[in-house]
């Protein structure tokens, strides 16, 4: 049971983002972490391989050389080895990313399963896993919060609006995008972090893989800070007065109810 987990090295969502130039960010001084949704994928991969009794969890990351930290993090949690595809540009379109992941994986071995988070918290694309699946001719389900391995298949559940759940059967090998609810990601303990330093990480440059796209790709033209609302208009009076004033404002001025 060989499971490849695609992990992205992203800014911690708690930190401020400094925009640099027209369309990139200042990464220096910014705290980076494993993409939160990828944590569910790493955890699921480790448990699945453990239950199978044999196999490996291989982490694959496309990113700059700092991204090795996220690979080490995954290794500390329990993945067996890693592959870093080095790319210096902060933003890489999802088609190129998916192709880089595909080539890195197929050069390495035969995947039984490919897992990753449902989306990255920086570019919020929600699509790399679909492109990866298409490149491999594998079926794919995204935003999966329940997964069960079967004979030559996986049965997953994903939630759609209204709390309704789709139960989907996919033939293996397949690609699955994980989301919150799939499992409880474990945290690495210090001995595991130290052990992880000895696990193998292969590094290669994205130029070695030949991922240039023939057709059009998404192009990030501009990145801008979001203007926050300014301080609230505080409504005063007794509890009853405040409530009545608010209803009046919402109905008559703002016309939202």
């Amino acid at each position, binding site marked *: 049971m060989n499971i490849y987990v695609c992990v992205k090295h992203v800014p911690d*969502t708690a930190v401020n*983002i400094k925009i640099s130039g027209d369309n990139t960010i200042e990464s220096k001084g910014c705290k980076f972490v494993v993409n939160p949704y990828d944590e569910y994928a790493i955890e699921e991969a480790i448990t699945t391989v453990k239950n199978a009794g044999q196999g490996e969890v291989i982490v694959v990351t496309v990113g700059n050389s700092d991204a090795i930290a996220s690979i080490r993090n995954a290794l500390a949690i329990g993945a067996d080895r890693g592959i870093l595809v080095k790319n210096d540009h902060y933003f890489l379109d999802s088609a190129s990313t998916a192709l880089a992941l595909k080539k890195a994986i197929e050069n390495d071995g035969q995947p039984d399963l490919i897992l990753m988070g449902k989306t990255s*918290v920086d570019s919020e694309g929600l699509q790399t896993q679909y492109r990866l699946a298409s490149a491999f001719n594998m079926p794919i389900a995204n935003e999966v919060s329940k997964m069960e391995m079967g004979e030559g298949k996986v049965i997953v559940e994903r*939630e*759609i609006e209204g709390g309704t759940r789709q*139960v989907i059967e*996919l033939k293996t090998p397949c690609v699955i995008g994980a989301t919150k609810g799939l499992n409880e990601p474990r945290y690495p303990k210090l001995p595991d972090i130290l052990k992880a330093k000895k696990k193998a990480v292969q590094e290669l440059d994205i130029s070695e893989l030949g991922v240039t796209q023939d057709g*059009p790709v998404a192009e990030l*033209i501009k990145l801008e800070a979001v203007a926050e609302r300014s301080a*609230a208009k505080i409504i005063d009076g007794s509890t009853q007065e405040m409530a009545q004033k608010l209803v009046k404002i919402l109905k008559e001025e703002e016309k939202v109810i």
Partner: protein
Amino acid sequence: MAKIGVIIEVENNEVKSINNGVITAASAEGANEVFAIFAEGDVNLNKDKVGIFGATVAVHLTAGNADLSANPDIQARALGELAKDQNFDGIIAVSSAKGRDVLARLAAFLNLPLALDCTQINFGDNSVVKSHFSGKTVATVKLSPDLLLCGIRPNVIEEKETTSDISLLEYDAKVEDPGLMKIIEIKQAGSHKVDLSEANVIVTGGRPMATVENFKILEVCADLMNGAVGASRAAVDGGFATHSMQVGQTGKTVSPKLYIGCGLSGSVQHFAGMKTSKIIVAINTDKDAPIFGKCDYGIIGDLFEVVPALTEALKNG
């Protein structure tokens, strides 16, 4: 005139209201021809529901005997064939769970750029606007000049009624089913309340809610405004609300006309999920809560007193 396909989301054979703003966007004030695509549901019954927002053609999309709702992959392939046959300039849809899934399959299959959860669309230069970095920045992204593929966040574009005639088009796509995946069951949730991501009014409770029972106070208030009830991560982690109620970065992204946060501090992660709301109101006992620095209206008070008072005022108003 550009031809824009809009994938229409149907539930119980009814056109969901979240489609309306997307149709309006596709029409671009009548500049574009809009093909409302029905992969399920009765097209004849529903064509006027899309016609009034600017759709000019209602398409009944089929792929032989395939059940397109049970197989999003086949649906995507059928859409690709339709786009080629009709020479579409774009295909857009609401960025709901189903919408973003089928659009991603279509984009992967055609190997074309796609942007999901967009808040603005500009057909003139094939660009869209969407969040990057969990709502902290907005990104302008340029897509394909051949076929623009885009998912629009529910409720961000106002629906606009217009007069337009709508014709019918039957299209049967010749697509292969590789037989690799299938939706084998749909598990309906208990309640049929409006989903958070589609609600026009949301009342959210934070950690001070303290119990599951207390959320009923918010429900009564929200009901009077035809709204939904949300919860902060703290409330969910505390066991007072289910994860499906969570608004925020690791929960749902919402964009209602009115968002009332009760006992919310206003964390960055929570705002990532609701900052495109039209009007944000905060109720908190702490006058220094960060939320008061970034919302439209504030009431400094105890939610357990203010929310019932609000309910009363709504009943009487």
